[in-house]
């Protein structure tokens, strides 16, 4: 790789101590969706990072914060080193072009009364990507071809005439047209049939490699995350519980929550007991964890210390940090230093 990021040039997208609290009106309880989250997505080299957690872990809230669709209660989101709420109009325009999203539901992003072409023509007009009608058509066709679709078959059709997989790939073609620097993919394959998932993930991987686009892959599916990502951040109720090199985290999870997640994946082997035979507590407690560890109520290894304060990040390996007192014999790192443990693509690319 020859294009190295210049020293001191600001990161593409960054969060600094971001917290988002919902509710808290008179007589209403507060929910902290994201708590003190610091994290960086580099544009160069382009990365694929997985953000994993169960429903309610705050992963979609984070996506909205990163897109500027929501403002943090405290902390800030920075695009090229500048806080989103301090950008001028032209910077905002550039931001909206550079950071794109692919949504979970390939049915909801289409307006049923417009042909699917509409999804592609809108960005072309808004971002002035084409100067003539023929150029516009050519642009649309090449984007569709790039994601493995046949433009003759699809253009001019209505959304209801297409399968979920086709719709999701058109959404990817749309993103490709815009040539962003980063894509936030929020559960892009969870509503697509299993046999089509691989091709959509392959499309994302291709965007990353061929078009040098960084991807934040938000999901609850650890297996697909493992297949396409280099690094992983595991969230539990708004806090990072484990992060780092995805191969290390998936193959030898250290945090009891990550272990529970991996044990809960149904293995295609009837003699291997689901969840390792461990029983689950029926309800995930929504009780306020106070100052203690948020996972303490469900944790099989809970100790005295877990009830008293939130565990900091312990740097268990060069490329891994775990927020759990089980590892308090290794050095701590600050929440703001989470970035330092991630693997940079050059050292791990297995091509």
């Amino acid at each position, binding site marked *: 790789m020859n294009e190295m990021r210049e020293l001191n040039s600001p990161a593409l997208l960054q969060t600094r101590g971001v917290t988002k609290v919902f509710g808290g009106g008179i007589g209403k309880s507060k929910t902290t969706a994201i708590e003190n989250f610091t994290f960086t997505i580099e544009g160069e080299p382009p990365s694929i990072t997985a953000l994993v957690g*169960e*429903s*309610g872990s705050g992963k979609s809230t984070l996506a909205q914060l990163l897109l500027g669709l929501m403002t943090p209660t405290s902390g800030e989101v920075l695009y090229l080193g500048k806080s989103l709420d301090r950008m001028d109009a032209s910077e905002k325009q550039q931001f909206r072009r550079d950071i794109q999203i692919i949504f979970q539901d390939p049915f909801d992003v289409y307006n049923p009364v417009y042909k699917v072409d509409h999804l592609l023509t809108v960005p072309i007009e808004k971002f002035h990507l084409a100067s003539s009608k023929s150029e516009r058509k050519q642009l649309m066709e090449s984007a569709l071809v790039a994601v493995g679709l046949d433009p003759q078959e699809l253009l001019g059709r209505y959304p209801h005439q297409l399968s979920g997989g086709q719709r999701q790939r058109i959404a990817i073609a749309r993103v490709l047209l815009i040539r962003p620097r980063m894509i936030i993919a929020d559960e892009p394959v*969870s*509503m697509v*049939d*299993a*046999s089509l998932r*691989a091709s959509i*993930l*392959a499309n994302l*991987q*291709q965007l990353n*490699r061929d078009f040098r686009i960084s991807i934040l892959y938000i999901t*609850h*599916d*650890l*297996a*697909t995350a*493992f*297949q*396409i990502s280099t690094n992983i951040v595991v969230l539990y109720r708004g806090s990072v519980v484990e992060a780092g090199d995805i*191969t290390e985290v*998936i*193959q030898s999870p250290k945090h009891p929550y990550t272990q*529970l*997640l*991996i044990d*809960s*994946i*149904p*293995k*295609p*082997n*009837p*003699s291997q007991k*689901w*969840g390792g035979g461990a029983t*689950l507590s*029926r*309800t*995930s407690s929504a009780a306020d964890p106070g100052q203690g560890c948020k996972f303490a109520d469900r944790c099989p290894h809970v100790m005295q210390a877990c009830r008293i304060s939130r565990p900091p990040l312990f740097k268990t390996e060069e490329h891994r940090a775990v927020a759990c007192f089980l590892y308090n014999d290794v050095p701590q790192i600050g929440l703001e230093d989470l970035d330092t443990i991630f693997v940079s693509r050059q050292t791990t690319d*297995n091509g």
Partner: protein
Amino acid sequence: MSISILEVNDLKINYYTPNRVIKAVDGISFDIQSGERFGLVGESGSGKSTVAMAILGLIKQPGRVESGEIWFTNGNGGEEPLANTRVNIRSLSLEQIRRLRLAGVALVPQGAMNSLNPVKKIRAQMLDGMVDHGILLSGHEKDERIKELLESVGLRQEVANMYPHELSGGMKQRVAIAIAISLRPKLIIADEPTSALDVIVQRQVMETLFELQDRLQASVLMVGHDMGLMAQSVHRLGVMYAGKLVEVGEVTDIFGHPQDSYTQRLIASLPSLTRKSSLV
């Protein structure tokens, strides 16, 4: 000795489109024993959900059941006039099928978020089926019944007075299970019951379903595409491809020694947690 709750013989179902006839189900046969969990697995378009719909008597235009039989044996406690009888679902009148649904064969639908009515409280939706089947309960009995059903799926009784949007995906799926078992059916059809849920909630919901199945001594027909989930859930498995059953057998045999090449590919297609493979 166990008895066959369901016997499907040489079932054929076609869909008629303006251009051609699609053989969605092309002559399949299988049976489900009492207390057994049977899985039908295949990719979308393989016909697995069409089979489930046929058992519920829900094949509609442009689909048509062309031939074959679907024998259902209702155990004790079934609703009259179907108690202790063996009936061919294909030969029942619409009214008889209506009575059979929920009371004899019940469906846990795919994506409960879309199957609950957004403007009705959970309580009313749970009572709908009972009312429809002519079960008359006093106000107090209704409260008791709802409390009992919600408890059986691990939900608090306050859930009854909530609207679907106030519940999480896993809670909605539990409500759907509570409704499905409300008339103590002999066969529960679960059509991809947990495909939209994360793994931990998925495991909790499946454990709840199987616990209830044991208690009701019902059978389960599980329809889906997730081989991992099937391996952990069913006793016997049928693999469907293009409307045909390419392999049927004990789940340990199918995963241990898959005979058909499609079954082998289906097992191999699961994303691995131990080895990265190139997708591009």
